[in-house]
């Protein structure tokens, strides 16, 4: 491509939020991934989020068949895929209709005008063509005859017209590369690799890509193009990673680091299944995966594998965690290591499987019979899932208790650049496996500091023992229904979890370390909260606002009272009806917590939250 084309009418941007939308079959995920990967390779910070319909192959052109991919590209730190859009790329009327509400006024809509046929307009329930009836006058509409132009560009390829039309997403991508001054060479290389046995397809897609690029260059409707400079990021080797993939890799890293083999027992459930998909690929790297007959067998097989000495995990989402409840109680009672990953989604019941929510916090805390506390931690971003999955395994192995790792659909399916962390950068894991014969071995004699019991596994001579779900004697581990012993054991198991506080990092605060307002969050809302606080402080330079984001939920880390005491107000924004605020109120009742709850299956947007900050700070 000519560098000359890249020179004219440049305008620098800090960041830009783009959403690609079209029919499920329009290749929007591919287009979005290509664009964001190219941007990342050129040094931008990015965050992406795919948005699929829950229908697998919805009728073409229908409102419920719209598939989307959003990317936020920045020259500065990017923490979320963005709220409001700067550019909407819509491949048909249905896609336009479903997404126009998220576009900022005055911003650009790029559409394939050929798709605005009467049939498609009807399917999208438009009474008149929005490209012609003036209803889009608040926006900068760039209507391009993409289908026709693509076919024209490909007329010598020998493909039929339907196959030619399939490349129109590459035409759109080419236009975008021009618009944001990105070199399309990454996509060219990608196409050559992906279709290496189909030269005709490579040729067609390359032609469409170039046609789109040059078309944008000569189009008067797009007089300017934008530049997003490279972001300043920590030095190192990066890759783009999805949350669920990072979770899977974090578990693998923990297995490698601890010298154990990984076992995942799991049952398919949206949006957690990608963890199973990822791990099943690496079976030759000491990973055993087992797709079980149901959620209960998923966790049960993991309990069996943990008993046999594997680092065992099970992955699920809310309804699956409900099914696993009894077995999770067994793991608490057995006191064996087990990682349960819950990629939360909208509930209750089947709820909104493809939408995000944080409403399983109380289920994680209390969703079992009897007194059965366990460790609960949460990942705050796609890349952070690697560290937190690793920590879940570490804490589980070192403290001999199940750990629930809470992520959610938003970060599980979202992706961002990740500085690759090799094993030597990860903390040591000291598991409690006993491999040598010991005189008078008792499986429930505890470590004085952590209260963790030893982990003697089948195959070890002389340490034969039976563990089970019945209450057991605190010394010899035999079944005991003694009342005092039971109370002591309940307290011991609780103390063991409580003592984990000494082994996790203290609460940290970002932005102002004291002042007017402390924003308190946990888990997947981190990006939204950080973006909002940063924006708020830009708008209100005098406001003293801090952000305390919790990665550790049970036990809560050190430093909470100190931190909370330093601010006049506290707000706890969550994607549920205020579960974490309630938990904090129970534990630290001396503080007043303002709740901000959003339960729409969507992340928290900056504008809505800034209004809440103002309500608190500017109320007289």
């Amino acid at each position, binding site marked *: 491509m000519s560098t000359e084309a890249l020179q004219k009418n440049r305008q620098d941007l800090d960041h830009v939020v783009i959403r690609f939308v079209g029919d499920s079959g329009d290749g929007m995920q591919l287009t979005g991934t290509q664009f964001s990967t190219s941007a*990342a*390779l050129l*040094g931008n910070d990015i965050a992406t989020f795919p948005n699929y319909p829950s229908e697998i192959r919805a009728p073409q052109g229908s409102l419920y068949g719209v598939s989307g991919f959003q990317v936020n590209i920045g020259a500065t730190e990017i923490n979320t895929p963005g709220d409001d859009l700067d550019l909407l790329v819509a491949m048909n009327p249905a896609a336009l209709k479903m997404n126009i509400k998220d576009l900022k006024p005055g911003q650009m809509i790029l559409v394939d005008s050929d798709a605005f046929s009467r049939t498609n307009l009807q399917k999208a329930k438009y009474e008149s063509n929005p490209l012609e009836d003036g209803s889009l006058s608040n926006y900068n509409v760039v209507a391009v005859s993409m289908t026709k132009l693509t076919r024209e560009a490909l007329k010598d390829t020998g493909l039929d017209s339907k196959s030619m039309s399939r490349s129109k997403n590459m035409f759109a991508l080419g236009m975008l590369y021009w618009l944001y001054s990105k070199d399309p060479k990454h996509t060219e290389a990608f196409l050559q690799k992906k279709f290496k046995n189909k030269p005709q397809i490579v040729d067609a897609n390359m032609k469409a890509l170039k046609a789109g690029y040059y078309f944008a260059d000569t189009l008067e409707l797009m007089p300017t193009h934008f530049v997003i400079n490279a972001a300043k*990021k*920590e*030095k*190192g*080797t*990066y*890759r*783009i990673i999805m949350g669920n993939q990072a979770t899977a*890799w974090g578990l*693998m*890293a923990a297995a*490698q680091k601890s010298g154990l*083999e990984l*076992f995942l*027992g799991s049952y398919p459930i949206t949006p957690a299944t990608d963890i199973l998909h990822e791990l099943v*690929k*690496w*079976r*030759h*790297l000491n990973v*055993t995966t*087992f797709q*079980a*007959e*149901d959620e*209960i*067998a998923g966790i*049960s*097989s993991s*309990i*069996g*594998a*943990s*008993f*046999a000495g*594997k680092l*065992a995990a099970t992955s699920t989402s809310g309804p699956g965690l409900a099914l696993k409840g*009894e*077995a999770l109680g*067994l793991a608490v009672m*057995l006191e064996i290591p087990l990682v349960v990953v819950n990629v939360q989604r909208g509930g209750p019941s089947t709820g909104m499987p493809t939408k995000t929510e944080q409403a399983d916090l109380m289920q994680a805390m209390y969703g079992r019979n009897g007194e059965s506390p366990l460790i609960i931690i949460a990942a705050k971003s796609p890349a952070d899932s690697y560290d937190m999955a690793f920590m879940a395994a570490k804490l589980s192995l070192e403290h001999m208790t199940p750990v629930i790792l809470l992520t959610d659909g938003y970060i599980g399916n979202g992706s961002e650049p990740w*500085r*690759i*962390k*090799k094993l030597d950068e990860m903390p040591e894991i000291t598991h409690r496996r006993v491999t040598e014969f010991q005189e008078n071995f008792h499986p429930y004699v505890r470590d004085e500091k952590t209260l963790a019991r030893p982990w003697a*596994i*089948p*195959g070890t*001579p002389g340490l*034969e*023992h*039976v*563990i*089970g*779900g019945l209450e057991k004697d605190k010394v010899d581990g*035999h*079944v005991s229904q003694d009342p005092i012993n039971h109370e002591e054991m309940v307290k011991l198991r609780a103390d063991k979890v409580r003592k984990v506080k000494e082994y996790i990092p203290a609460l940290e605060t970002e932005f102002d370390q004291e002042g007017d307002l402390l924003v308190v969050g946990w888990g997947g809302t981190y990006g939204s909260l950080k973006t909002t606080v940063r924006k708020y402080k830009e708008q209100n330079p005098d406001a003293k606002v801090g952000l305390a984001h919790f990665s550790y939920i049970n036990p809560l880390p050190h430093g909470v009272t100190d931190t909370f005491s330093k601010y006049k107000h506290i707000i706890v924004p969550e994607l549920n009806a205020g579960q974490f605020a309630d938990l904090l109120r129970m534990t630290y009742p001396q503080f007043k917590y303002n709740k901000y709850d959003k339960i729409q299956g969507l992340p928290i947007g900056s504008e809505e939250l800034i209004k809440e900050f103002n309500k608190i700070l500017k109320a007289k």
Partner: protein
Amino acid sequence: MTTNIKYTFKDFASDQDVRWCPGCDDYVILRSIQKALPEVGRKKEDIVFISGIGCSSRFPYYMDNYGMHSIHGRAAAIATGTKLANPDLSVWVTSGDGDSMAIGGNHFIHALRRNINLNYILFNNEIYGLTKGQFSPTSLLGQKTKSSPYGNAQTPFNPGELAIGAQGKFFARAAGNDAKLQVELYKEADKHRGTALVEILQNCVIFNDGAYSNISDKNVKADAQLVVEHGKPMIFGKEKNKGIVLNGMKLKVVSIGENGVKESDILVHDAHEPDPSLHLALINMKEPVVMGLIRAVKDKTLIDREIEITEYAKKISPIKSFEELLFSGETYEIG
């Protein structure tokens, strides 16, 4: 792993008091297992007993091996994880009719289907014992229990029939009071590579006493039971003069020496035949009830197949280590 250590049954008995009701067939099962294990030649630390909930599920406490007394119905799923995690272990499930076929029905059929080389002892007493006497999935139609005071309305499962339907490759049956046959069958189960289901017709002396008396009582058993052996004719009866022939599609009891029936007319048992038709007919026979090793068909186990797939993955995957995985695909440098 095999061993040359000479164990006796005492080596497999734990120091815990056995707490089943006096006279329960569970004692016979326990003793038979403890007798069978010294003969299978495995180290005791490599043997694991996993159970769910119910009278049968107290079993692991009485064995001096590794064990887990888990939760209701899940023993098969837990044992599957243990076996997958360490295929060198000999993993035994002890379970009852309620535990296996009601609450744990799903895990039960999948353990059979997957052929995962578990040894599964099913204590079938046709009643819920630990909850004190409700009908189970194997209780007879019309059976009066605490939860069916006017008679049971639910059609029972025949565990062997269910096992065949679930692709089971090994099925054996013994009366709860027949220690000798049980010892043999437990050894066969251990030897068999695949999920081996042994059904024990176990008498519950408290809540369903006498359920099998017309089959297992000393004075009737010779005529009421046919104990099959692979390669031998299906002959039974006090006088050893009764046998089984195939009459059309059905099995028929005949008397040798009557109506011109000769010993050579009697069916010879083939436990290794993959086609389950005849095994199913034997399983469903009521008079006599068929005991012994009814079906033992060789097939790959789940673990055999998993290992093959892992070898294949190892061969074709360009990524040979976790480190390589981290840096695979598209990466880029900053700084």
